[in-house]
């Protein structure tokens, strides 16, 4: 009975789609006759590539024009051409190590914050993911369950992640309650600037480690078991097995994971924005938030400056991505040789 | 009607020329087998006929109509693929009906056509199964059924038996022969297996490196290979090809001599040859006979007793290897010396270009 119902519901839902597809077939037949199969390739590519061109390629190109203009108007035609002035403004610094000596001190604050965040977060993220992957690779009962446990936060939206942790880290939150019960000092975690940074790092690791664990675990499981058995026969101590067998064989995956983590960390925005709003002060302000606020949110908005900043960030990402592709290609070649 | 004509068909992929001008006339109802080593272009030629690929030169016509630019669907042909290419997500019934649905036949007609094809190929029992649930032989039948149901002008079969095991291959081969007899539709069959080719073909097309080497009835090709390639390609075990020198050219024969006392007169038209020319003497393993005192002395290296016949591997005095298939189980030493005799009329002679030395006009008739 239920199955019958399901069948009818399925048929009812599928019918319009099938009619649509049949309808599409009629003009397409004519098109195919006129252009041959090569023309059909154009037809199949067209929708994706049109959307792609309008919403990716065109913005990519005109971003450079934006970065060369000034004013707060959004239409390119209404904007004044200023050449490289925006870049000069961003890069105008007395001392690059001291954001407050720069003309755009907020930008440099965001850059130095992001730099510190990237170094700390990526290092900790890789270590935590690696340990978790190694543990999941052991012969434990219910491995797929445990793998799922660590994966759960990956699916949560950044807004949800930010709010969950805001709720836990607030003055009367769960963390302070636990510390209080243990007789330890409580803090206003998101209001104090040192702990706000730690919170941003910890929360982003919490949210993303499952993804990297999964890739590393896949790499670990691809290492042939008999290598470990051979090492065991040789009486190799476990630490040596890790450094001499596991790590070298995992290296391709590890490199990919590091680059991916770097690419993501450079663009960090949503969960930290919801968690701290960039505060306290500017202590968790990162580049993407800077671009967003200069481009859209602040009263003194300056799209040209935001575009210039985004191009500078994009340059870093391009380098990282090229490194990633290079590694990928090398792995592929290696795979082909083996 | 299924008369197909190919005129100067060429196909190249970039700089790589795969077909160098193929001319072939296929009569209605004929069973033509394209055979050749892998990479010879036979599958490409079949795809060109099917319309799945278009030639870079030449003309294809079916029943006198030029179809070179016509799409695969509109040529009215059906094809059986090497991998069967059954749609894995459809049942056998849907597989058979798919092509008929595409030409908008009424439902009732589709049903009766599929039922008829299913009965003919004895696949009614699993009409509602998916290809994944079928054995190789069953898949093969469905693949043929899918071709039959369309009632095509001609069938194109691309190595249809190569994925079957030896036993099934023999029985399916017989069924394909029976099917051809029953439908009397043109069939073009590609294979690299010469036994399939010998047993099925009305006409036999041997190809190599994008060219046709010889066309003819199977036994004609076996008895009168036009060149060294065809001679070596057809027949198992392979024909022995012995490098020799002509010692004498007479009116109705050419005498060749070689090491080990080889001296034999071959009844061919040697008018283009002269004494001292290097030629190749071809002798099929079955045409060699063991002899006590006459013939060519050889050194036996291995004797394989198969029961009804005995295979003898031997080397001539200058090291050229020979294989002989002797009937019966004659007790022969596994090594040592032996003499092979041969009958001049069963020998083949090829000139230094590898072309067959013409047979005598009168004796051949």
């Amino acid at each position: 009975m239920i199955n019958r119902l399901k069948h009818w519901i399925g048929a009812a839902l599928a019918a319009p789609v099938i009619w649509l597809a049949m309808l599409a077939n009629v003009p397409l037949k004519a098109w195919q006759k006129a252009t041959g199969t090569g023309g059909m390739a154009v037809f199949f590519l067209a929708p994706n590539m049109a959307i792609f061109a309008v919403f990716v390629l065109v913005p990519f190109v005109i971003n450079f024009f934006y970065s060369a203009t000034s004013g707060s108007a959004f239409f390119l035609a209404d904007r004044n051409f200023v050449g490289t002035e925006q870049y000069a403004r961003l890069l105008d610094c007395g001392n690059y190590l001291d954001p407050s000596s720069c003309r755009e001190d907020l930008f440099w604050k965001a850059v130095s914050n992001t730099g510190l965040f990237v170094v700390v977060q990526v290092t900790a993220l890789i270590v935590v993911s690696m340990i978790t992957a190694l543990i999941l690779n052991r012969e434990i009962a219910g491995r797929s369950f445990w793998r799922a446990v660590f994966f759960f936060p990956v699916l949560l939206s950044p807004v949800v992640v930010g709010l969950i942790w805001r709720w836990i880290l607030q003055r009367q939150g769960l963390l302070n309650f636990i510390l209080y019960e243990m007789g330890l000092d409580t803090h206003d975690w998101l209001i104090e600037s040192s702990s706000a940074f730690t919170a941003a790092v910890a929360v982003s690791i919490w949210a993303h480690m499952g993804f990297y664990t999964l890739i590393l675990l896949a790499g670990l499981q691809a290492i042939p078991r008999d290598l470990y058995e051979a090492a065991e026969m040789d009486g190799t101590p476990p630490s040596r097995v890790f450094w001499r067998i596991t790590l070298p064989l995992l290296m391709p995956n590890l490199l990919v994971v590091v680059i991916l983590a770097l690419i993501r960390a450079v663009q960090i925005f949503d969960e930290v924005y919801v968690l701290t709003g960039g505060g306290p002060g500017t202590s968790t302000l990162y580049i993407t938030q800077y671009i967003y606020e200069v481009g859209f949110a602040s009263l003194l908005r300056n799209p040209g400056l935001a575009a210039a900043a985004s191009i500078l960030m994009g340059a870093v990402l391009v380098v990282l991505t090229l490194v990633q592709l290079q590694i990928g290609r090398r792995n592929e070649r290696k795979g082909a040789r083996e | 009607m299924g008369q197909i004509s190919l005129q100067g068909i060429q196909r190249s992929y970039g700089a790589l020329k795969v077909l160098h001008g193929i001319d072939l006339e296929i009569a209605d109802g004929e069973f033509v087998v394209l055979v050749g080593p892998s990479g010879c272009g036979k599958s490409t030629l079949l795809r060109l006929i099917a319309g799945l690929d278009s030639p870079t030169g030449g003309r294809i016509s079916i029943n006198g109509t030029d179809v070179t630019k016509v799409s695969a669907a509109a040529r009215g042909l059906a094809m059986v693929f090497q991998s069967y290419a059954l749609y894995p997500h459809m049942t056998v019934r849907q597989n058979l009906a798919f092509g008929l649905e595409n030409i908008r036949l009424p439902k009732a007609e589709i049903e009766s056509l599929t039922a008829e094809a299913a009965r003919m190929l004895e696949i009614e029992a699993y009409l509602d199964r998916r290809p994944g649930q079928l054995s190789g032989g069953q898949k093969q039948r469905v693949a043929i059924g899918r071709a039959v149901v369309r009632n095509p002008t001609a069938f194109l079969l691309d190595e249809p038996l190569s994925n079957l095991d030896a036993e099934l291959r023999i029985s399916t081969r017989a069924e394909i022969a029976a099917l051809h007899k029953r439908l009397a539709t043109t069939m073009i069959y590609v294979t690299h297996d010469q036994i399939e080719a010998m047993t099925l073909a009305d006409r036999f097309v041997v190809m190599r490196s994008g060219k046709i080497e010889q066309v003819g009835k199977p036994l004609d090709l076996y008895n009168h290979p036009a060149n060294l390639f065809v001679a070596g390609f057809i027949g198992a075990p392979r024909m022995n090809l012995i490098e020799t020198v002509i010692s004498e050219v007479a009116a109705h024969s050419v005498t060749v001599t070689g090491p080990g006392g080889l001296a034999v007169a071959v009844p061919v038209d040697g008018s283009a040859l002269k004494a001292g020319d290097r030629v190749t003497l071809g002798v099929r393993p079955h045409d060699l006979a063991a002899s006590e005192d006459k013939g060519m002395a050889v050194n036996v290296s291995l004797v394989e007793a198969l029961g009804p016949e005995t295979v003898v591997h031997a080397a001539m005095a200058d090291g050229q290897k020979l294989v002989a298939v002797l009937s019966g189980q004659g007790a022969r030493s596994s090594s040592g010396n032996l003499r092979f005799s041969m009958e001049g009329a069963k020998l083949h002679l090829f000139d230094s270009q590898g072309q067959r030395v013409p047979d005598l006009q009168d004796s051949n008739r």
Partner: protein
Amino acid sequence: MSGVASFLTRRRGGKAWHWTDIVTWVWLIGGLVIMFGPAIWLTASSFKSPAQLAEFPPTVLPYVNKQVTVEGHEKPLNLFTVKMADGTTRQLAEVRRIGIVAQMIDPANPGEVIKINIAERVPVRELGLATENYVTPLQQNDFLLYLRNSVFVTFAATIITLLTNSMAAFALSKYKFPGRDLVLLIIVGTLMVPLSVVLVPLYSVVNAVGLFDSLWGIILPTVATPTGVFLLRQYMLTIPDELLDAARMDNATEWQIYWRIVLPLAAPALAVLAIFSVVWRWNDFLWPLVVLSRKELYTLQVGLNTYAGELNVQWHYILAMTVVTMIPVVLVFVFLQKFITSGIAGSGLK
């Protein structure tokens, strides 16, 4: 029971406990608590009343004030345990409160009004869910609208993504045409251009094509995903070309080949992409934040952020709406987790 215990503690080769086994289980159990704990705590909190949320230390379970219906009063009254002047304790219901003095009555004797200092009483509580945390924002605030917007955006974007990406993947995997490698290269190139890099120009493009402040403005820029095209192309490359040739011999047009042969056979990859797309679009935040300015077009993520950013945060509503936002993703996790993890392990996309 001992069987369960021995199953759970089964270790490498059945040897004795090794210190690494202890580390393993501490890590796993700790992980379980840290990964699920916050979401569970959030969910438990979302059923607490505002008064209870303000308490420190917090209770784990949600409680509500016990209420009684008293004759002569239309609404149910809150029940309190009161310490009387004579040292006895009584359970009284509050009629009204003026400053620090509450007028209370005994439910058994509704005629007599007793004035009590509020310091002398504690509320009577029972286990209960403050479901109004969910009902009120959905009914009175705009959250039902946000929910509808999110659902619309997610489904529309996913359907368009599946259709356009699969068509492009079909062309890129099954046809040879001049410029194919160039197209592939361009698509790879986009992996380098994440949204945050083209925020400003994309905003102006969306404005120029008239999609500003429209749900289509957040749908269309996201649908031509390079990862989707790649995932599907890789999968379609494994579909044998002979099948397509067979369909061509069977009089199928190229569209029919795509629709009736290739799409059904690519179903596993389409399913993976569909799940990913649903999660991606449901979770999108930055782009909707930029494009949507009219409140009635907000998606759940933007709406939540806006409410959570107000000066006077109404946490009881925020928590409940966060749970609502989390539900689809939790469902995806529970039922489709295997699909996703194998999809990631196989292709490295996120």
